[in-house]
Structure formats: structure tokens, C-alpha cells
């Protein structure tokens, strides 16, 4: 993939950060507004995919980036499991125990552990989709 014209590159440079910000907003407000880890993770992956499509793959050292995204994926799912078993440390023998204090519903810091779950699911989904896309792109340029 060669990359597109300078117009597309400039517009992408302006917008991809804001798309990333929007994805983070969707993830963080998953317990208040429609959205959550899945939708936000896919939008975050979309911002990176936009950069790769616009700038071409020579712009990034992609092999390294693919390893990093796989690493993030593993870290995300591991933290998710760790939080799920986290009740054991507080001597509560329930898997997926909502162990943080609840707070008042409707605030950003509420719903106990659900926002934290959302963040880790967002990391996992974003890394998974990014590595799927990069695998296809690298496979295409291989031979």
C-alpha cells in the first residue's frame, strides 16, 4: 500500500486524534450512555486503521506495531481475568464480584467496577481488530 494524496494525509493527521478521543469517550461513558467497551474499542482501532490506510505502511514500522498490539490484547484479557478473580483477595468467594463501592448512579465514577471492565474490554477489542487488519495488510505486501 502506497498511501494516498497529501490532502488525505493532512485531513487524517487532523482528525485521527479526535476519533481516538471519541472512542475513549464511548468507552468511559459506557455505563451512562449507549456504547461501551466493544463499540469504543472498535472506534479506537478505526482511528489507527485510518492512519495506516492514509499514510501507507512504509510510514510505520508495521511488524513491530503488530507485536505491540498482540501484547496489548493479551494484557487486556489478563487484566480482565484478574479483576474477575479480584474478589478472592477481599475474601469474597464470587467470580465477577462487583467489589468497588457503587457511588450514585449517573455520575462518571459510579457502578463500581463496571467502568474498569469496560476499559480493559476496550483495550482488548481495539488491539484484536488492529492486529487483524495489520495481518491482512502485511500479508498483502509480503509477496
Amino acid at each position, binding site marked *: 500500500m502506497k498511501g494516498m*494524496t*497529501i*490532502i488525505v494525509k*493532512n*485531513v*487524517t*493527521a*487532523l482528525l*485521527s*486524534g*479526535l476519533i*481516538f*478521543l*471519541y472512542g*475513549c*469517550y464511548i468507552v*468511559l*461513558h459506557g455505563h451512562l450512555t449507549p456504547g461501551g467497551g466493544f463499540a469504543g474499542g472498535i472506534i479506537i482501532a478505526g482511528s489507527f486503521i485510518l*492512519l495506516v490506510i492514509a499514510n501507507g505502511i512504509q510510514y510505520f514500522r508495521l511488524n513491530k506495531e503488530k507485536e505491540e498490539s498482540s501484547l496489548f490484547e493479551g494484557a487486556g484479557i489478563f487484566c480482565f481475568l484478574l479483576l474477575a478473580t479480584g474478589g478472592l483477595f477481599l475474601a469474597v468467594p464470587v467470580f465477577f464480584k462487583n467489589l468497588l463501592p457503587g457511588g450514585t448512579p449517573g*455520575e*462518571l*465514577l459510579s457502578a463500581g467496577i463496571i467502568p474498569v471492565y469496560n476499559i480493559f474490554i476496550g483495550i482488548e477489542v481495539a488491539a484484536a481488530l488492529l492486529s487483524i487488519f495489520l495481518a491482512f495488510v502485511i500479508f498483502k505486501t509480503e509477496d
Partner: protein
Amino acid sequence: MRAINVLIYFLICFATWLLLTHNLGWQNLVAGSVISLLTTLVFSRYFNFDVTKMINPVRWFWMIIYIIYFIWQCVKANFDVAYRVLHPAMPIKPGIVRVNLTLQGSLARTILANSITMTPGTIAVDIIDDILYVHWIYVRYLDHDRYAYRISGKFERILKKIFE
């Protein structure tokens, strides 16, 4: 210049966060600054435009004039294209023309190309080495100076006042 760019990018991100959330509670402000910092860390390296000139208020004044002029051009072009589509004989003569750009700076060129694209009837195809390729629905002149003035002359003059 680099540090100012990063700072301006952070402010843009934070303003976008506030516009998205509509909430001034302390939790929201802390979350917004953390997310904006993260975005700045990852994406500010792609934001390398020269933005220090934009502090001058005269340039903002010209930007307002540019927006008004652009909307006026857009309305005129809309009626023109609607006339061409609805006319039974369909008086179109499409073609791709080359326009030599006198404008420097990639951000200004991007805005110029996007303005040309958003005006109905013309589409900016590509920019290769100071030459802008434009697809035009009715190629009126074959002389370079005349069609260049017709397509991008006024736009370019105002954009020069904004960005240079």
C-alpha cells in the same frame, strides 16, 4: 514551535472532550485531561502544522470573511449545477485541469483543496508538486490563467491573507 504545537493539540482535544460531554464536574474534568494527555502523547506527532501565526486576530477576521465567501460561492455553484442537471440538453463538458498553486504550506493547501471539493461542480483530485489537479464539470476556458482565476483565484487570495 514543537512545544507550542503539542500544547495547542492538547487544548483542541480538551475542548473537544468538553463539547462531547457537556459537563463541568471535577470527575469529568480529570478524565478529560487524562484522555487528552493520552491522545496528545500518541497523535501529536502527526500534527506538525505551523500554527503560531494564528494568534494574530487579523487572521481570524479574514477567516470569517473566507467562510462567508465560501458559503456564497457554494450557493451559486449549487444553482449552476442544478441548472445543468435539469436542463434537457445537459450542457456539461467535463475534464481535468491543472492549476499552478502559489500558496505555500500544507494546511492552507488542504483547506483550499477541500473548499474546491465541497463546491459543487469541481472536485480536487490530487496535489503533485505545486500543481493541483481539478475535475471540472464544465471546462469553460482552455487558457491557464483564466481558469485558474475562475477556480481558485479568490479562495487563494483570502487564504494567503489567513496563512501567510
